[in-house]
């Protein structure tokens, strides 16, 4: 790939598209399911959106100018897939209810208090575009310019959505407190 041997962040991609996509799957699958689940309301759809993203990557592998852009491609595909899912919700819509025995980390256990639940619910109840902006800003840590590029809107629009979202969350948390 032309990268320095000392650059450990550079993944040596397998030669075949299938090998590369499979390798990326094992590294990024869980993270992408997490991202998708922040944008849609049921786990099964989040998993399917991630599957679609990897399938799309495989179909378009030869068109990728830089294989190392694949991770960004996957992130974008998941965001677009989630938006498409929200828009269509054709036939297989469902909602989750708590599942017994779901594994949770110690970090999550410590956050799993009422404030977390309240804030989590508040984020999920935001209008979809505001929710996307919140996730891209605070979870993927994208800049306003990057978010605007990803969502195909102006930077001013991103600012407005971010302002409205944080105001709504602030009101909700104050009411809860």
């Amino acid at each position, binding site marked *: 790939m032309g990268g320095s041997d000392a650059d450990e962040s550079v993944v040596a991609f397998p030669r075949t598209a*299938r090998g590369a*996509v*499979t390798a990326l*799957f*094992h590294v990024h*699958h*869980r*993270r992408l*399911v*997490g*991202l*998708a*689940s*922040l944008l849609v309301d*049921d*786990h*099964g759809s*989040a*998993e*399917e959106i*991630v*599957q*679609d993203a*990897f*399938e799309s990557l*495989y*179909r378009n592998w030869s068109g990728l100018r830089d294989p190392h852009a694949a991770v960004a491609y996957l992130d974008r595909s998941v965001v677009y897939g989630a938006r498409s899912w929200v828009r269509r919700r*054709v*036939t*297989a*819509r*469902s*909602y*989750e*209810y708590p*599942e*017994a*025995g*779901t*594994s*949770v*980390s110690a*970090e*999550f256990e410590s*956050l*799993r208090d009422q*404030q*977390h639940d309240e*804030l*989590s619910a508040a*984020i999920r109840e935001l209008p979809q575009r505001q929710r996307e902006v*919140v*996730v891209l800003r*605070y*979870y993927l840590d994208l800049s306003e310019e990057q978010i605007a590029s990803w969502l195909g809107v102006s930077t001013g629009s991103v600012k407005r959505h971010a302002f409205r979202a*944080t105001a709504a*969350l*602030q009101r909700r*948390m104050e009411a809860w407190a």
Partner: protein
Amino acid sequence: MNELEHAVVATLRADAQEAAMSTDTTREAEVLHDRLDRIDHDTRVRRTALGVVALAAAVAVTFAALTLWPRLNGNAEPATPSPAPTTSASYASAFFVDPFTATLPAWLLEGTAPRVYQSSSYQFWNHCATDADCGALSVSWVSGVTSASSVVAVDRQGLVDHLTALGDSGKIRITSSAPMTVDGRAATDLRVQTIDDVNGALGCGSVACQDIGGGSLARYVVIDMGPGAAPVLVWADAPTQNAHAAGWMDQLDIFLRSLRFTGVGAVEGRWTATLTAEQARAAVGTAGQSQQRIAGFGDPVRLSATFSSGFALVSVVGRDGSVVTPIANLPYRTTQGQVTLGDGQRLTITGGPSTARFVPNGPATSTPSPQEQLAAALLVAASWAR
């Protein structure tokens, strides 16, 4: 970053982590493998088709040249229409709790490949390029139905009653209801016209309750899976603007006639076992959390493991057999003497119909929760009896 923003970041990370931890990467890798296989297959078929088209074009030119002269002389024979293409494909489930084989109806295979979703409680094919040619077929394991804010367990009749009540309340229009037999099992066939979306009304699986999509023709077939077992719902639907919707609902018969449930496991039912506290501690190794929990189980440790429709509830029980402390609800599937737990760990069942040992036959392939690890370790450590 202010306090709210810090809280938002922490909440999003925690929610994402929870979702990430609850996904079964092994299963998802298998699904991706199948999808990539399908793409490879389609690519090969497309290339072959292009070759065939080129060959056919050459043949057609030759044929036209050979037939042109007789036609011009008034000797042409009337053309005969070619038969409509009819394709179907056999399917064997990979993850569904009640393993099955069936023949998929042709409409599901026409045009672009349908999207497939598979899980232990839900098998779904979605043929939807546009609303005009949209259609779906699903096999769902139904553990219960929503009632107020809770989920209430149902058997076949209970699910039929629930759907009938939706009809009575005007949320769906049931145009016919008839008894039928599927794989030798009693079933009820409801033909339905949906009106509006009804969230969570089509029965709940292990983690989700399915919605009814509005504006569709649908067919709901509720199949009895035996006493105490959750019913299976086979359903198909297509938007009413799909001109083929009625025909596609009729073609569900192809699927239903061929449907065979192949793997009703011998492990189903309730098992009990007793271990000394020392044996239990030895089984779980040095994990501090598990050792602490075992200390609260008493000595001896009395256990029950209830295998039912894809979930094994491992619990500590009292002298009278009543559940004192549920440990974990382990998802599982069975194939020919093997139980595969949700984390990918395979256990071989030995013993007769009334006794069993579960012998590890492969490591876990994903990280189970501490509760699941504890339950699986106790499952393996004990000798079980019905």
